[in-house]
């Protein structure tokens, strides 16, 4: 079990740059397209994202990953409960942004924790104007 966890984590660490490169590339292309083509297709929002990260390192790594990807940007962070506020350029809905960030968080926690990423919480959706349901 232990060995599997370690292997899992090593794989997580190794996959990180790949994911990052992918995110960087796709994000750059998407925002670059936005920039180079006329008109505006953005639908930005500031989204509160509760996290499963615990340590400062995890939170800041996640915040940085979000920021590194063109199209999303961490504006604020909170330690306890761990939360980031993400500016997202293409916000279909509150939930879509949450899913996007939590996907990143999954990959991050896989690399930082032996036990891997915990399951995502369910009741975090918010309404159109950000109000809690």
């Amino acid at each position, binding site marked *: 079990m232990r060995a599997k966890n370690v292997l899992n984590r090593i794989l997580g660490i190794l996959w990180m740059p790949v994911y*990052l490169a992918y995110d*960087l*590339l796709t*994000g*750059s292309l998407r*925002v*670059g397209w*936005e*920039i*180079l083509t006329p008109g*505006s297709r*953005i*639908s*930005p*929002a*500031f*989204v*509160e994202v509760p996290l499963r990260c615990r340590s400062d390192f995890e939170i800041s790594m996640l*915040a*940085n*990953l979000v*920021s*590194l*990807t*063109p*199209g*999303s*940007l*961490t*504006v*604020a962070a909170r330690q306890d409960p761990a939360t980031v*506020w993400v*500016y997202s*350029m293409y*916000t279909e809905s*509150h939930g879509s942004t949450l899913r996007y960030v939590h996907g990143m968080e999954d990959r991050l926690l896989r690399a930082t924790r032996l036990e891997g990423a915990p399951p995502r919480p369910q009741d975090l959706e*918010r309404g*159109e*104007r*950000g*109000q809690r349901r």
Partner: protein
Amino acid sequence: MTPTQIAGDVLILAGALAFLVGAIGLLRLPDLYSRLNGVTISGAFGPALILIGLLVQQPSVGNALKVGLALVIQLATSAVGGSAMARAGYLTGAPQAEETRFDDLVVELDEQAGKEHPGYSRPDT
């Protein structure tokens, strides 16, 4: 010209063009926050391509280490710098684009801030 040189040149040119795209974004995108995403292209993607191009052209263990170091630092710092700037803008009421759908950072029923934020813009004059 060797293939590695060509590959390196292409990578560098791509990086520089990505850089240019980010810069144009600085002109074209509607508000601070979206422009900062353009900056990310120039701060992370562009330099990354250029540095890799450099390594491709001058491959050595030392260079690999240094380029790797530079890459990591550049990515980390540009991300942190972008966040810091976004927060600074938010704190000082940088105007938000009309398209902004919602803002979870707004504290409702806050008398002091409610009138001023969001939508409040205080141009830097």
